[in-house]
């Protein structure tokens, strides 16, 4: 019974960290995409300043979102019981 319980808890925890991992991949993918667009604009001499300007706003926004999500996941999952 005790073992079943711990297996269940482990599976739940793994899935929770997997969700956090998917979110990291999602935000990472978006940032890579934005950097790819800057690189393309740079190579083609196609007004790279526009891409850089927009990415200076967009990338920090996505990073803040990622930070908030990881903060919540870390904070809640590591403090499930009152110490």
């Amino acid at each position, binding site marked *: 019974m005790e073992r079943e319980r711990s297996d269940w808890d482990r*599976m*739940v*925890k793994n*899935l*929770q960290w997997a*969700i956090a991992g998917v979110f990291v991949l*999602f*935000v990472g993918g*978006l940032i890579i*995409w*934005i950097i790819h*667009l*800057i690189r*393309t*604009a740079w190579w083609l001499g*196609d*007004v790279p300043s*526009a*891409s850089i300007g*927009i*990415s200076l706003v*967009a990338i920090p*926004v*996505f990073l*803040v*979102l990622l930070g*908030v*999500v990881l*903060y*919540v*996941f870390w*904070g*809640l*999952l590591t*403090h*499930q*019981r*009152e*110490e």
Partner: protein
Amino acid sequence: MVEHKDVHEEILLAPIAQTGPGFYWAVAGLAVFILWGAIAYAVQFHQGLGVTGLQQPVSWGFYVTNFVFFIGISHAGTLISAILRLSKAEWRRPITRMAEVITVMVLFIGAGQILIDLGRPDRMMNVIRYGRYQSPLLWDATSISAYLTASVVYLYLPMIPDIAVLRDRLKKRKLFYSVLALGWTGTEHQQRILNRAIAIMAVLVIPIAVSVHSVVSFVFSMTLQPMWHSTIFGPYFVVGAIFSGIAALIVAMIVFRKAYGLEPYLKPIHFRYLGQLLLIMALLWFYFTFSEYLTGYYGAEPEEMKVFWAKFIGPFWPFFWAMVLCNFVIPIACLARLSQRTVGKVLIASLSVTVGMWLERFIIVVPTLSFPRVPFPEGVYSPTWVEWGLMAGSFALFALFYLLFTKLFPIISIWEIQEGRETGLKEVEERLLTYLPDEAEANILAVSTRGR
């Protein structure tokens, strides 16, 4: 005596625990429209965009109208909910969840309109591979991605304590709720973390939401097309978005209030406050519309005037005047006095605004393209059954997503209602006292005034 906590949980979890025949009837009804939409899409996918009414010069029609409309409605949620949360408006508590769900659902549907408009969805890969940040279309893609991500996070975070209730009380979907509850046990530490994260998100989503609709307007205003090239398009679109968002929220509230018996939570006072907000937005919308058209008329630029008169007395006059009727005349008539029959009046005004704001988006998109600046022949747009089907399907899909959400999660935040009862009342009293002059200070001041 039964505790308040248990009573709230019982009432608000009832739609998830039990499913009546009404739900299946609603799903069946929506499925008919979704099927119509699916068939329409299959025909368009197979035969190409030629089956639609889109042609040169009118290359944007219902799909882009729907895109702007749905993205506008998305402001219901996150923006209204975040503003009410940050301003500590206590009456927000039963409303915020409904608003946040609207945002997430319509953003998916709105973004989907662009895929439909592309004709060939595989061309989306071109945006990923060869996108150019000089184009406002790509600004749109980026800001909508940010808004969708932020909205999902902002919807999810305040749901965590309620998901933990579902995990502990419901016998079904144990794994699903256990995973999403993130081990929530309601410790002080967990509450501190969650409150901090919600506060950060509430601050973050406001500029993102404003940027999204500004950027949507830039798709039009960055061109030199008549009646699109306007400096006030950004704020005009944002105002329209909040306006239609509030209307959509009120309609959703009234539907679910009736369907799930939520009258004790969604009281006439909530509708009165939202009705007042809607009235303010109606006046603001009229102000922006008036400014926009007056400036165009005064400039009297020939190409601009062609579009102007096409809207006022030309082929688009029924849509233009219906828009004015739905967005201004009817809401003002309904919302000017809300002391009696509040819910009914607010519902009529909201339905009217929803229709009116769709017409507004149509009136912005189509007439300009029908009378282009470049020497194209003028064109008339007439949507085919494919476009009507996809529009009906999109609306039905949104309603279905919303309905399914209410069967998985409580549509009114349980913990926020409890928090309102347990700590909110005391907090409001304390806050109110800080607004008023301090008694001791007032007495000292009175004595010194007398002495003088």
